[in-house]
């Protein structure tokens, strides 16, 4: 009894003898691979001043009814008298921000007039509408260059969209080209993304019909 390889060799020889020459084209099977990956959104570090809230054992805030040496007013039980919260840092892995459009965390809702859907994971614009982000990087370091990357096939009516980046918290918007590194004229330490629809309609949809997500990416270089 021949082993399997021998049988295959004999059969191949038979085929060659009966049909003619053997094709030298190696068949290639295309395998459609799908996978999942973890994307870590920026970490946002904030601090909150305890203000006039009562803290057991605190030298300044630990005595009920006494004047608070920290803020100069009476301490109060509970968090009602806690002070303001300040954002200290927003940082990203590999100096690359990825917008997944699954939450409004980094959408500047006060300035954005386009329709952001965290259900459909898209942004829809009509003429004159804008998308503006909150700072997507803010770590006290000077941003000198940045690159916006949106998959071309995820943009509808790209001719109607203008892209901007700002290194100074949106004060100076500098127009950029998708997928082209931009060197900031005005540097700063708070990176903001801005998009403007100049005519008719436009859209950015980061998820295709098969559920594949390609986030909006902004990579940056710090001094």
């Amino acid at each position, binding site marked *: 009894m021949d082993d399997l390889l021998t049988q295959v060799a004999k059969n191949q020889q038979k085929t060659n003898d009966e049909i003619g020459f053997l094709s030298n084209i190696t068949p290639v099977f295309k395998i*459609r*691979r*799908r*996978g*999942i*990956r*973890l*994307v*870590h*959104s*920026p*970490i*946002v*570090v*904030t*601090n*909150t*001043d*305890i203000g006039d809230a009562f*803290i057991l*054992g*605190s*030298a*300044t*805030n630990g005595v009920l009814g006494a004047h608070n040496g*920290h803020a100069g007013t009476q301490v109060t039980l509970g968090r009602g008298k806690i002070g303001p*919260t300040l954002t*200290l*840092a927003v*940082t990203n*892995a590999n100096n690359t921000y990825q917008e*997944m459009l*699954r*939450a409004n*965390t980094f959408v500047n809702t006060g300035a954005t007039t386009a329709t952001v859907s965290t259900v459909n994971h898209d942004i829809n614009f009509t003429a004159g509408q804008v998308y503006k982000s909150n700072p997507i990087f803010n*770590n*006290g*370091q000077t941003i000198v260059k940045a690159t916006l990357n949106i998959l071309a096939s995820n943009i509808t009516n790209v001719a109607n969209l203008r892209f901007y980046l700002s290194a100074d918290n949106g004060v100076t918007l500098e127009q950029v080209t998708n997928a082209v590194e931009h060197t900031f004229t005005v540097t700063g330490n708070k990176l903001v993304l801005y998009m403007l629809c100049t005519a008719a309609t436009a859209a950015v949809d980061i998820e295709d019909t*098969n*559920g*594949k*997500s390609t*986030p909006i990416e902004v990579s940056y270089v710090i001094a």
Partner: protein
Amino acid sequence: MVIVNNGVNRVRDLLYADLYRGKLGTNDTAPAESDTDLVVGESTTYLAFDTTSYSDKQITMNYLLNSALGNSIAFGGASTQFDITNPSGTTFRYTFDGTGTDPLITANRPEVGDSMVINGQNFNAANNGTFVVTASGANYFEVTNASGVVESNKTLGTGSLTMIPIYKEFGIYTNSASPVLLSRDTFTDITKDATKEINISTTIYIIQD
């Protein structure tokens, strides 16, 4: 092949159930995929997440270091003995001389910029106070103190030696039975004191490629 949404969310559920704690550290070496822990983690900040939640293909975590925690990291104990020398000018070096509880001082702990609150019972009063660290290495740290006094074989006694840390890294851990670092991030100096609480929030997305 299509990985369906329910399948992705099943992976999310497994990760969500495995989330354990967050921890702050004091080293800003750039994160690497080969990291297995924070470079200089502070055990007093190793805390369960204040809140966690999940929704479609995502998990959100909030870590809270309240005003009472992580402000003063203790070094050594009553028996810890120091020699205090004057290498140059107004620079004074505090060196653990090997006697007593090891305060575990290294070049990374404390680091330049951290503040040391020195309150040695048996130290000359001029050597006590709060000073910013100007240099550090194995078993020693240096500060600037125009009034410093050279002395040897002085224990902390009933006093203390603590550090007001400057936090620069944050880690997320999974697997409570055998903790594993899931991610490490770094940021610019965050000084913690008893008038502040620090909150760190982040989201992990589980997406299809």
